[in-house]
Structures are given as structure tokens and as C-alpha cells.
């Protein structure tokens, strides 16, 4: 077992633990923290089903962003969609047998790597070219884009320039999951790609990537507009009994 294999094995155990524990902890905090008042941005759905539909539109077609900026929407949506397809495609390294729908994605992956990077570069160009977005962009915003572009770029490089042994790679990850370590191919592009992905997993719970779980908990989007029909109380607003206190 090479030092590189051991290093990456430990790295991915650590990164996975940080990602899972960190995000679950955040989700627990979001879920536990009460929302004492009704604050949906109206017009808002008046039923739970309507709210579910609103949320589905928000996370699949980025409805609010579409209303606000067509360029940001285009770049952001293309990036997220391509990333989503790529994530599913990468399941083939972690599943045996491979889930039925994964092979069907093969044709799309001709474009998704490039689409991801193109979307990211579009978003990045706004950070440089649009004075308003330049003003609000900090070092971490640029670095996050750099990280994602590098992940996409190293992935594309492996597909078209410096192929790696994906059979061995799959054996490595299945080995990690089954606690029976297998050697990791010692290819520079792969090692870079994996190191960056691990870094992304590690920073996820302490960065703006929390928007992914956050959006589901956003009260302006997930509350039902029914305050007159149904009395809402939570947290500090639940501690009063107005019928007793003759205030």
C-alpha cells in the first residue's frame, strides 16, 4: 500500500465525516430553530402542497433567480444542472452494480463537464466585469469559483488528455466503503482532482455552500400563507397565553 493511497484514504474518510457531520449539524440547527412569525414572501401558496411546488420550482429551475437576472440565472442554472448530472455520473465509482440510470447519462457527460466550467466562468466574469457584483465579491467568493473550475478542469483533463485507470479508481473507492483498502492510481490529474474534491467537501459546512440545505429552510419560501386561517406560534411567540392574561 503506497503512502499516497493511505493519505488519500484517510483524507476521504476525514472529508466525508466533516461533510456529513457538518451539514447534518447545520440542518439540525435550521430545523430546531423556531420561526416565531409568519413571513412568507407573498403572493405565496396557501397550502402545503403549493409550498412544496414552490420549493420544487425554486430548486429545479431557480424561479426567483430567473425573475432577477437572466445572465446570472443562465450561468448558475447551467452550472448546477451540469454539476448534478456529473454527480450522478460519478456514482459509477461508488456503486456495484451501477444503478440503472447512470449509464443513460453517458451521452450527456460529453457536455456537462464543459457546461459546468462554462457556467462557472460566466459567473466569474460577472464578478470581474459587473461593478456591483465586483463590489460584493470577497476573496472567498473568487477562491470558491477557482476551486470548482479546477475540479471541473481536472476532470475534463482526465477524460480527454490524461486518462486514468478508472477500474482501479473504482476499486479504491469501493475499498474505502468496504473498509478493505485498494491502491489508488498514482496519476497527477487524478490526485489533483480528488484533493480538490476533498477540500470542497471539507469547506462545505463552513462556507456559503450551505445555501444548498439552507434554501429548504428559508421561511420566506417554505411558509404557507395562512396566518388568518391558522394561528401560527413557535419559539418566543408560543410562550404567551392571551386568553388568560387580560393584558
Amino acid at each position, binding site marked *: 500500500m503506497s503512502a499516497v493511497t493511505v493519505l488519500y484514504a484517510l483524507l476521504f474518510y476525514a472529508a466525508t465525516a466533516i461533510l456529513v457531520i457538518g451539514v447534518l449539524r447545520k440542518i439540525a440547527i435550521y430545523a430546531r430553530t423556531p420561526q416565531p412569525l409568519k413571513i412568507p414572501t407573498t403572493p405565496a401558496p396557501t397550502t402545503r402542497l403549493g409550498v412544496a411546488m414552490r420549493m420544487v420550482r425554486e430548486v429545479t429551475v431557480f424561479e426567483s433567480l430567473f*425573475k432577477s437576472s437572466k445572465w446570472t440565472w443562465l450561468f448558475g442554472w447551467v452550472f448546477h444542472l451540469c454539476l448534478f448530472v456529473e454527480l450522478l455520473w460519478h456514482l459509477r465509482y461508488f456503486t456495484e452494480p451501477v444503478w440503472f440510470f447512470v449509464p443513460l447519462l453517458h451521452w450527456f457527460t460529453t457536455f456537462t463537464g464543459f457546461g459546468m466550467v462554462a457556467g462557472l466562468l460566466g459567473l466569474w466574469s460577472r464578478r470581474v466585469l459587473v461593478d456591483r457584483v465586483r463590489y460584493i465579491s470577497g476573496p472567498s467568493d473568487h477562491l470558491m469559483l477557482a476551486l470548482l473550475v479546477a475540479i471541473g478542469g481536472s476532470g475534463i483533463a482526465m477524460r480527454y488528455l490524461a486518462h486514468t485507470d478508472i477500474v482501479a479508481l473504482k476499486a479504491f473507492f469501493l475499498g474505502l466503503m468496504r473498509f478493505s483498502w485498494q491502491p489508488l492510481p498514482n496519476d497527477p490529474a487524478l490526485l489533483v482532482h480528488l484533493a480538490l474534491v476533498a477540500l470542497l467537501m471539507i469547506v462545505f459546512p463552513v462556507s456559503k455552500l450551505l445555501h444548498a440545505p439552507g434554501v429548504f429552510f428559508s421561511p420566506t419560501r417554505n411558509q404557507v400563507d395562512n396566518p388568518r386561517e391558522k394561528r401560527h406560534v413557535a419559539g418566543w411567540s408560543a410562550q404567551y397565553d392571551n386568553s388568560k392574561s387580560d393584558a
Partner: protein
Amino acid sequence: MANFETPALREYPVIPLLRADSMAHSRTFVAKAEYQTAIGFPGELVENWEQKAVDKLGELVSKSRALQVFLDSCVKCGACTDKCHYFLGTEDPKNMPVARQDLLRSVYRRYYTFAGKVVPWLVGARDMTKDVLDEWYNYFHQCSQCRRCSVYCPYGIDTAEISMAARDIMDSVGVGQRYSNEIIGKLHKIGNNLGLPEPALANTLEGLEEDVKDETGVDVKFPLDVKGAEILLITPSADFFAEPHIDGLIGYAKVFHAAGVSWTLSSYASEAANFSMFIGSHDNLRKVALRIRKAALDLGVKRIIVGECGHAWRVAYSFWNTLAGPFDFLDPRYPIPQHICEFTYDLIQKGALTFDKSANDDKVVTFHDSCNVARASRMGDMPGGQFVIPREVIKAVVNNFVDMSPETTQEATFCCGGGGGLLTDDLLELRVKGAMPRMQALNEVVKENGVTHMAAICAICKAQFTKVLPYYKFEMGMIQSVHGLVSNAIRLTPADK
């Protein structure tokens, strides 16, 4: 008189380039100690205020899912950057919603996030200092909490929530805004924002009865503190004296008269406004809301109807049930509470009102959606009823109605520029500049469609437009109450009574 330039109205709206610190000087008057202590806050900047402010921030975040999510989730995508009327009017980058949020988020990150504690420079985290506090004070009083940015944010981040929290933190360390806090104090003490005592109110209402009698020959009543009335009307106190608000009040009274229902105002709860929302103070918010519960119980009414007021309708519609409910002593067959436009609209639907629309033929009317009605409440049964119902009421009483550009109405409506506790003369520059996007849209329909009047259902909008319209070379009388238009057109028969 003003030492600033009124923004020019252009042929098309443009997104301005940034002018850093162009509004850094805008600083609303700080509340004196007496106004602070009257509503439960320290009179002046407390000792060790830095730590206390940070602690308060942590406490607020731990009690509000909205703050938890909003402070974590922003990705700086820029979608909101061109959505704030104050940014469009002032060009100050700190009036971009995300930049305004970051004034507070930077402090939150420093004290409550891993990245902000370890690598503050990387994520823009800042210590809580006097400079930061001053910046908060100046720029969180350049947000009217209109929620326009929250419509466009992909995560629904609502700058209003953050600006309310910032003001609450500042109040808690002894730095409050004079305008809002003085008014809340008066409301607690006397029952309305104006400090209008019961005899003065009774006198005003008597005068109105005489005026309406002279004008129409009909005995339209303006009852006060009538026990056993069916309906309690809660309306902004500006309706008792200001133009064009008072025309609206006369309109409500005429509609009640025509409907043949008994109604009353309350001298104890003679105010719909609840500025506690603007300063994010839950204790004050609830205390004011409970006045209305008490008035309704004491008078033994069966229904509560709310007059034309934007943020008041938000508080009434969205918060009353939570803060002062349950209202199980009211008649469940009617919405609790009900908006006056809902009430009038129902009567129109039933054919119970008679109008002579030609009474408004001297006008071509447009409608300004008030932000808190548009984006923080509803009317009627269906989402968006808050856009349909006031327009239907207007169309029932005027022949010439024109809507402004869809980018500036309904959920996309622009704030009048005076909401959120900013309707004070010490913020006049901000108010004039913040009105620019609305004035731009108004100018378009004035030029293209010959619009002569703009109707609104918010006391703040009406007062703000009365003040700022002349800066844009419009007549201040352009702004109308929706129920002022109703009042003009409604035909009453003396035999009704």
C-alpha cells in the same frame, strides 16, 4: 432649501454605476434617553456595548430560523444588487441589499462562524467596533424593509429581517432612532402615533360628520367607543387629519353607512400602525397588538376591519393572530382581521353599493402597490388577491384606470421611499432619492397615458408622496386614497339609515 439634487427621470430606467459612500452622511436623529427608556431600552450607549451587541446578535439568531438561514446562505450572486429603490436612487453600493446584509453578516461571521473566527480576512469578517456601529446606524436606516430584494433572492433572503435585527441590537445597546421610538412611546401612552387624546379625536370625528352632512345631506356617522358595535375599525391615525388620508376615512364611513352595519373606532386603540415592527422589537410589537385585542373585547365587537395602511396590514394580517390571538370571540364567518378593501369589494360583488363613476371623470388613475401589502400579506382567498382587490375597487369607482409598468407593480412594486420608519424630515434626501424608481414609472404613464392621479392604500405612502411628488415636478395632490375615490363616487340615499 435642500442641499441635494433630485435624481433625473430618464426615458428608460437604468441601473446606475456605483458611487461609493454617496450616502455615508445620511444619519437619522438618534433618540434621546427619554424616548429610549419609555419603550424598554437603555437611554444611551451602554458600557461594554461591543460584547452586549455581539451577545444580542447571537441571541436573535438562535431564536430566528430566518436569521440562521439568511446569514449562512448568501452566495453573493448579485441578483439583488439592482433591486433596491434606495440603491437605484442614491447609487451608494452599501444600499445594495447584499451589501447592507453584509454590514451585519460580517460581524456574525467574526463571532459565530468557524471561517470568520479563523480566517476573517478570507470571508470578510469584522470586529464589532464603533465604526461598524455607526455604519449600521446610517445604512440600516436606509432600508425601508420593503422586501423587494427577497422576491428576487434565489434563497428568499429578506433584508427586512436583517435590518430589523440590526435595529433591535442597536436599541438594546442604547442607540435608537428618534422618529420611530418617540412614536412607539406615544402609542403606548395615548393610543396613537400622533398622541391625539380622546377629546381631540372625538372632536375631529364630529367635525367630519358635519362636513359630510354639509356635502351630501346624509347623516354619515363616525362613531367612537360605541359598545356593542358590530365592527371595530382600526385605522392609521393619519386618517384623522392628513390629506389625502382623511378622504379615505370618509370613504370607509360612507361604505359602512351604505352597508347599514354598525361600527366604531376605539380611542384606546386609535392606531393601526405598529412601528415596533420597523425596529424589530417583539415585546413592543406584541404590546401594541394587544391594545387592539383589549379594545375589541372591551367594546364587544364581532369583527375587526383595518383601514388603508401598508405595514399595519402586514402586522394585522400576518402577526395579530400569533401575537394577540386567538380571536375566538370574533365572528368566524368573516376574515379576522379583514381589510377595508376586502369589505368594500365584497359589497361591490354583491351589488350592494351604488356608484356614479363620472364623479371621478376628472382623473386618470393609476395604483401604487404598497410594499407590505404586496409582499407581506394577502387579501381575499387567493394568492395575489392583494393586487386584484384594490384594483377592482378602483375600477368600480373610476372610468379611467391605467397600470404602471409591470416591473414596478404587484410583487415587483417599488417602495414609496418612506416606509420602514424612514418617514422623517431628517431623512429627506434619502426619501426623495428613494422615490426615484416609482417616480420614473409614474412619469411614464403620465406621459403616455395622461395619468393624473395615483391611488394608494398606505398612510406612509400617502404622506411620503405628498412630500416628494413636488421634487419631481408633480402636483402633491396627485396622490389619493383608494377610499377617497370611493367616497367621491358612492351615492348614498338618506333613507338608508
